[in-house]
């Protein structure tokens, strides 16, 4: 597989604590310009897989390649210049303003004294525009609603830049308009040449915004491919243990329970 077009390559990746395995023998790659959705039941290992891609966990077997380099050899800072993560765990220092939170995204591009360059300021302004928080720039983060805070954190992640954008359940807290807005922005990030990986729970959003879906089941890759290929009634029964049929409307797929 050509490393050139694939900023993220996982080779026979396994992860676990002690003897238990949370992820077993996962191989996949994500191309530039592509949005890959990670789907699967709770506890199937989606977030763990994303954290492995972000270099926050070390695999017990196999390896992660980031832009062709062995991830285990990248420094924390070099990693952060290539891979940006919107984590699920919230939190921001109380009274910090949105603009300052977004500016934190530039941390890996700055020296120890952290002087913001013109490029940093431009990236911050653009990211706030893209995540629709420009109007909130002067607001302290702890006065925002859950959805506003999530968009501010998305802006921080966009400001970080890099080749890979990782999103862990990015639509949490967001109303429909902002779910579309955020995933639309993720699509544009892919169109700009980045590789995007998002943990999504919503099949209709995943089928609409992702080029391919990776279905995780009990720590293994159950299938990977376009939504129309990997999502069918048999897969839903096998992976999620539900009896459902799938309604289709254009590219969108909606699971509906069968009674």
């Amino acid at each position, binding site marked *: 597989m050509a490393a050139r077009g694939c900023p993220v390559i996982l080779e026979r990746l396994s992860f676990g604590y002690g003897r238990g395995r949370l992820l077993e023998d996962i191989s996949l790659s994500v191309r530039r310009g592509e949005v890959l959705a990670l789907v699967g039941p709770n506890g199937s290992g989606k977030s763990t897989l994303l954290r492995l891609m972000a270099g926050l966990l070390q695999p017990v077997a196999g390896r992660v390649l980031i832009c062709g380099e062995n991830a285990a050899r990248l420094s924390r800072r070099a990693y952060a210049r290539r891979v940006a*993560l919107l984590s699920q765990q919230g*939190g921001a220092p*109380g009274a*910090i303003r949105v603009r300052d939170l977004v500016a934190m995204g530039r*941390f*890996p591009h700055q020296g120890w004294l952290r002087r913001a360059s013109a490029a940093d300021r431009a990236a911050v302004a653009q990211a706030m525009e893209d995540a629709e928080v420009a109007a909130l720039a002067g607001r302290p983060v702890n006065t925002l609603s859950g959805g506003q805070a999530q968009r501010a954190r998305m802006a921080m992640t966009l400001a970080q830049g890099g080749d890979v954008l990782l999103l862990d359940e990015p639509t949490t807290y967001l109303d429909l308009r902002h779910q579309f807005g955020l995933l639309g922005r993720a699509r544009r990030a892919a169109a700009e040449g980045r590789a995007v990986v998002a943990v999504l729970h919503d099949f209709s959003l995943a089928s609409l915004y992702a080029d391919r879906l990776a279905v995780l089941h009990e720590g293994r890759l159950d299938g990977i491919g376009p939504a129309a290929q990997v999502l069918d009634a048999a897969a839903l029964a096998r992976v999620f243990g539900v009896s459902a049929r799938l309604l289709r409307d254009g590219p969108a797929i909606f699971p509906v329970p069968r009674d």
Partner: protein
Amino acid sequence: MTDPARHPFTLALLAVLCVGLAAVHQSFGAVWIPPGTVLSALAAPSDGFLETVVLRQRLPRLEVAAFAGAALAVAGFALQKVLRNPLVSPSTLGISGGAALAVVAGQFFLALRGGSLLLPATAGAGTALMATLALSRLIAGQGDPRLDLVLAGSMVSMLCGALTTFLVSLDPQAFDGLMRWLVGDIGLQDSRALPLTAGPAAAAAAGLLALSRTTDLLAAGDDTARALGLAAGAVTWMTVALAVVLAVAAVATVGPIGFLGLVVPHMARLLLGEAGPAPLAGCLLLGPAMLILADILARCLMAPQVMITGTVMGLIGGAAFLALLLRLGRRGLE
């Protein structure tokens, strides 16, 4: 809620408060000394009675109180920020207790005096902190790990305190002086340690100010901080080490003074928020203000008898700590 745009104004007000308290500190006491006399004593030292009181008694006390107040408040703020725990401070983590034990042991066994006590004090503080961290892992149960840490710190503090008083009790001649030191008496000798302790403390405070933007990232959560390229562990440990240097400098100068390092950071955050250098600068001003106030009360409430500043600070700080706990109890630890 604090508006960052108003922080410079708030800091200026705190600076004025500090200077005002310092002026009161110099003028009030067993003898009233008019501010004009204080200023002329400072400008042109002479050996008149009032001038001597200012230069030999009140000014050294002021220096020591301002120094220890700043050092403990900044140390407490840094610890609370990077450990993300509103109840930690040099005293509640056992750092002060460990330093005090090492100072007393150094005097007792090695006959060390003055500045040479700084090294054993640092070793004692570091050892006590490690013991607290290890113990908190051992007792970790189902509850809030932040409470485990404070419980472990209290146990280590009590153990250090018991050992310290045991050592002190073995030496009847030094008993009185050491006991006064242990409860945070600002005595006439204390300012002699300042030239030695001020350097490391100033360097540590400058380091913490320089790190303040970086440590903001920790509040975004471990995963986010690391994904932003921060060596989260290294920054946390560096910050804790600098806080220990500050706490040891304060203890070696004036003895362990409780509560200040716990309570003042909360006041600073209420006024100046959590992020960036502003609340740290607030601690640099509020800590001295608090201890200078305690020293004014110690010298004035029962004048001409002088009370022990650390015990007055303990009373004020204990009341503030109780209020803080009740408030946290209502809203939950955040």
